[in-house]
């Protein structure tokens, strides 16, 4: 019998970080209409304030450990408020704040300054947060679109510029294509299990396997299509083709934000779907979840292709695009590890740790490109940072930190991330793919160090334009990268409470 819900059933308090962000973004959309054209700094500050408030709330609830069985669900289980949600929220909000700081001056000097930029950024951050909080495939789908649609628009933000429009259209068409796959997969999962809630899917999977019904192949197909849809978001091979072109064409400040936000959202949803919904989806005769072998294969391909192709790149934005593909591969090792019973929680923690480290590092690296780039969007080749160290010693030093962190050199955040990810891979007995990860990291050192070499040891006219908000953004990112590298327990503490899998 249908019972009429009451307001308190929604458990609104548990969703506070997301609700505040949604409210703030909506209000800012209207407020911005009354901010005169030359004073968009106000909009940017307000956006920062909204993100800051939400970040504080998320940080305050980070400590509590919530058990899923009795855990706080809100909106009838559509929204889950546990440690994983909070950790993802913190990562997304930090990224978004850095994104605003990086963007302001860049937009000003390239003539793109419009209030909508910040509003769209807030909405897409909300989407990424909700993907981490999803307790139901409906939430995953709606949040994915909330994350993606603003990003399509932001990619085309350099209005009337061919490259930007092209990248927006390409991102849009391929993104919509991928979400078609995702939602078809969701429909199949719903058909096989009769529910869209992860808890229900988990329970139904067991019955399905026990009954040995043919329906399990429907579920397998559905899971595969969901994997493809989310794989597109995180730029995993073979769904990566859009990445270099979109990253090159879109405004660099947008790329700085979206290269991290889209990944965080995509991986958060992957963790939810795979580690919570389908951890026990073990076909007969296998010891790990049915999706594990596919995921580690994708991980291996992604790492190899990303790193090998990055070596040949001369445009910094393209280089970082392939590097971001490669990093998706490293994280996928941990995702694959979630398929082994007993390792799921450790692997989920590794994903979160990696993403936090990656957020600081990658936003920072793109922020340096923002500083180097000229007003017309050109000047982003590796030649353009020749001799940057003489002209801008602090900027070059920051870039060096980011490059070392991306390469995974010890005492940087990137090393900590890789450490935990490889550890999870070994714990799950995924030795070959972990070895590939280590080897390809060695390859990656070549092209990261090449950037440093160009900055420090080549003669040239490396120039940059830095203004205050951008300088703050880069400094915070660089300091964050170093602090997390020196004090890894900050990261592992943040992830400590994560216990999401029934199978874990």
């Amino acid at each position, binding site marked *: 019998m*249908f019972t*009429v*819900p*009451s*307001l308190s059933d929604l458990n609104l308090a548990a969703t506070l970080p997301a609700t505040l962000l949604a409210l703030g973004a909506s209000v800012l959309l*209207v407020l911005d*209409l009354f901010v005169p054209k030359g004073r968009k700094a106000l909009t940017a500050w307000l956006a920062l304030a909204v993100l800051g408030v939400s970040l504080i709330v998320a940080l305050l609830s980070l400590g509590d450990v919530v058990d899923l069985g009795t855990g706080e669900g809100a909106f009838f289980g559509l929204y889950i408020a546990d440690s994983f949600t909070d950790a993802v929220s913190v990562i997304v909000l930090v990224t978004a704040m850095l994104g605003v700081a990086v963007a302001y001056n860049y937009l000003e000097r390239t003539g793109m300054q419009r209030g909508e930029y910040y509003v769209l950024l807030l909405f897409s951050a909300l989407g990424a947060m909700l993907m981490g909080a999803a307790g139901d495939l409906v939430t995953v789908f709606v949040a994915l679109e909330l994350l993606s649609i603003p990003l399509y628009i932001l990619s085309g933000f350099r209005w009337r510029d061919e490259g930007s429009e092209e990248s927006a259209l390409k991102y849009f068409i391929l993104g919509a294509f991928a979400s078609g796959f995702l939602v078809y997969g969701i429909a199949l999962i719903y058909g096989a299990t009769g529910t869209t809630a992860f808890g229900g899917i988990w329970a139904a999977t067991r019955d399905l396997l026990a009954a040995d019904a043919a329906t399990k192949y429907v579920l397998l197909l559905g899971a595969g299509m969901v994997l493809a849809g989310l794989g597109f978001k995180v730029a995993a091979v073979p769904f990566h083709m859009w990445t270099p072109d979109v990253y090159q064409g879109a405004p660099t400040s947008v790329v700085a934000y979206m290269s991290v936000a889209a990944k965080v959202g995509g991986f958060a949803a992957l963790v939810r779907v795979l580690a919570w919904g389908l951890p026990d989806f073990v076909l007969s005769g296998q010891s790990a979840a049915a999706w594990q072998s596919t995921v580690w294969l994708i991980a291996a391909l992604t790492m190899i292709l990303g790193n090998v192709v990055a070596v040949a790149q001369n445009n910094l934005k393209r280089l970082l695009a392939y590097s971001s593909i490669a990093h998706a591969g490293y994280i996928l090792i941990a995702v694959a590890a979630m398929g082994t019973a007993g390792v799921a929680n450790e692997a989920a923690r590794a994903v979160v740790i990696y993403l936090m480290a990656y957020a600081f590092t990658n936003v920072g690296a793109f922020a340096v490109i923002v500083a180097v780039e000229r007003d017309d969007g050109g000047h982003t080749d590796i030649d353009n940072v020749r001799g940057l160290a003489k002209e801008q010693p602090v900027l070059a030093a920051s870039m060096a930190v980011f490059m070392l962190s991306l390469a995974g050199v010890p005492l940087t955040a990137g090393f900590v991330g890789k450490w935990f990810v490889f550890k999870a891979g070994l714990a799950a007995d995924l030795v070959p793919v972990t070895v590939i990860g280590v080897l390809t990291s060695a390859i990656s050192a070549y092209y990261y160090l090449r950037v440093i070499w160009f900055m420090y040891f080549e003669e040239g006219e490396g120039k940059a334009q830095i203004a205050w908000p951008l300088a703050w953004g880069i400094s915070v990112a660089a300091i964050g990268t170093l602090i997390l590298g020196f004090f890894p327990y900050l990261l592992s503490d943040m992830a400590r409470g994560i216990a999401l899998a029934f199978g874990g």
Partner: protein
Amino acid sequence: MILNEWVFVGLFFLLGPVLLVVPIALSKWLAPKRPTPIKQDAYECGAEPVGLAWKQFRAEYYIFALVFLVFDVELVFMFPWALAYNKLGLFALFEMVIFVLLLVVALVYTWRKGALEWS
């Protein structure tokens, strides 16, 4: 059982063309034909037609179309709500108020941006 349902579909397919063809044939047969140039012209609500029908529309149409496209589908959520309204009580009212408020935010935005003006 299944056959009965399909009989109706079959009847529909048979009767549909008949209903379409008969009136046209009747008017062809009965109506007097005295064409003049004015009668042959394209009909534009009585005004004299300007140019060809195959021309490009102004960009404003697209803006309206886009705004319509977005707002129009939101009704999908309102119909079920309206149907079950009596049973749902205050909770659903509250939810719908929030939903409509969000739409109002979007409406205010389009309005202030001048997308509702025909300029």
